């Protein structure tokens, strides 16, 4: 399968994502510049971390209007898997592909440290290989990761199983101390209703190999590969059924359906 790694002016985790996709899990990957308007041939889109457009105005506010984002939206609406990491998550929020918004961290500090996140749902293409309740050690590095959504929005997220990751302690308990930035309900990552668009503040691409301190992030990338392989099987089955249906229709029509 082939990953599109979108590059905005100011992205700085694009190469890490590329490395995770190609060198760590052995898939194809290609950089896609923010002015491109074509995502055909790609199976998964990653919006990497960084400081697109210098984070001016608000993080992600300007990047969301980049030409490539029209295509990312189209890709997402067609059900394609989209992963926004850190600044990529902020861009998805600004674009309205995910609900809520980011505020400055509660303590105003840029937090760069290891965190533990608990997988709340395995229904997304990026968590399919995870066990619900599984705790991953994945680092964060952000100044604006204080996830905000109003009460009604939070209820919606919970009712639709859109909370994908929560900050916890090492044993998976949600505690105030394990919340690094003040996010509502310790939220570290969410998905859209369909589940195919996922955003998270922690960096799985920075925790794909043991020598980086943790290889826990790898499962995020492996999950989408497994998910797409599964979809491929489903697609092939559908195509086969379509062919059989056409064949039956042709037979019913006395083999004349080819003539128009």
């Amino acid at each position: 399968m082939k990953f599109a790694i979108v590059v905005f002016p100011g992205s700085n985790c694009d190469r890490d994502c590329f490395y995770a996709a190609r060198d760590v899990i052995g898939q194809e990957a290609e950089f896609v510049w923010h002015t491109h308007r074509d995502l055909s041939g790609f199976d998964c889109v990653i919006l990497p971390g960084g400081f697109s457009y210098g984070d001016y105005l608000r993080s992600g506010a300007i990047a969301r209007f980049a030409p490539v984002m029209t295509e990312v939206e189209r890709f997402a609406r067609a059900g394609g898997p989209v992963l926004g990491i850190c600044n990529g998550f902020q861009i998805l929020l600004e674009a309205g592909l995910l609900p809520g918004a980011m505020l400055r961290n509660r303590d105003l500090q840029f937090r760069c440290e290891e965190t533990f996140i608990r997988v709340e749902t395995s229904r997304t293409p990026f968590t399919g290989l995870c066990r619900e309740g599984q705790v991953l050690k994945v680092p964060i590095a952000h100044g604006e990761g204080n996830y905000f959504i109003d009460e009604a929005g939070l209820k919606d997220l919970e009712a639709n199983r859109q909370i994908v990751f929560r900050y916890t302690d090492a044993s998976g308990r949600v505690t105030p101390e394990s919340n690094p930035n003040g996010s509502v309900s310790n939220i570290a990552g969410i998905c859209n209703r369909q589940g195919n668009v996922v955003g998270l503040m922690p960096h799985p691409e920075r925790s794909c190999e043991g020598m980086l301190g943790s290889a826990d992030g790898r499962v995020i990338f492996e999950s989408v590969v497994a998910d797409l392989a599964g979809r491929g099987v489903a697609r092939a089955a559908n195509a086969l059924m379509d062919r059989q249906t056409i064949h039956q229709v042709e037979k019913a029509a006395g083999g004349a359906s080819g003539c128009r």
Partner: protein
Amino acid sequence: MWLARIRVMLKKGVLDPQGKAVLGALQTQGYKRVQEVRVGKYLEVRLHSMGRIEAEAEVEEMCRRLLSNPVIEEFSFELDELPESAER
């Protein structure tokens, strides 16, 4: 020529970490009567001549689409006509 003076503030009820930090700093310096500080953004946008209603609609739209995030922020603006000599 129009000059739009735009203010973007966090909505009431949305935690303002910057405002809280500034409040703390002011109180530390002895301004004990300070109750609350909210930090926002101020923008000046100059627009070429057009009707007032048109200009207002355009500023309103840019505030909604880009300059503020309606999930967490609210905006307000004043629009003043500048003399033509201010045209660049």
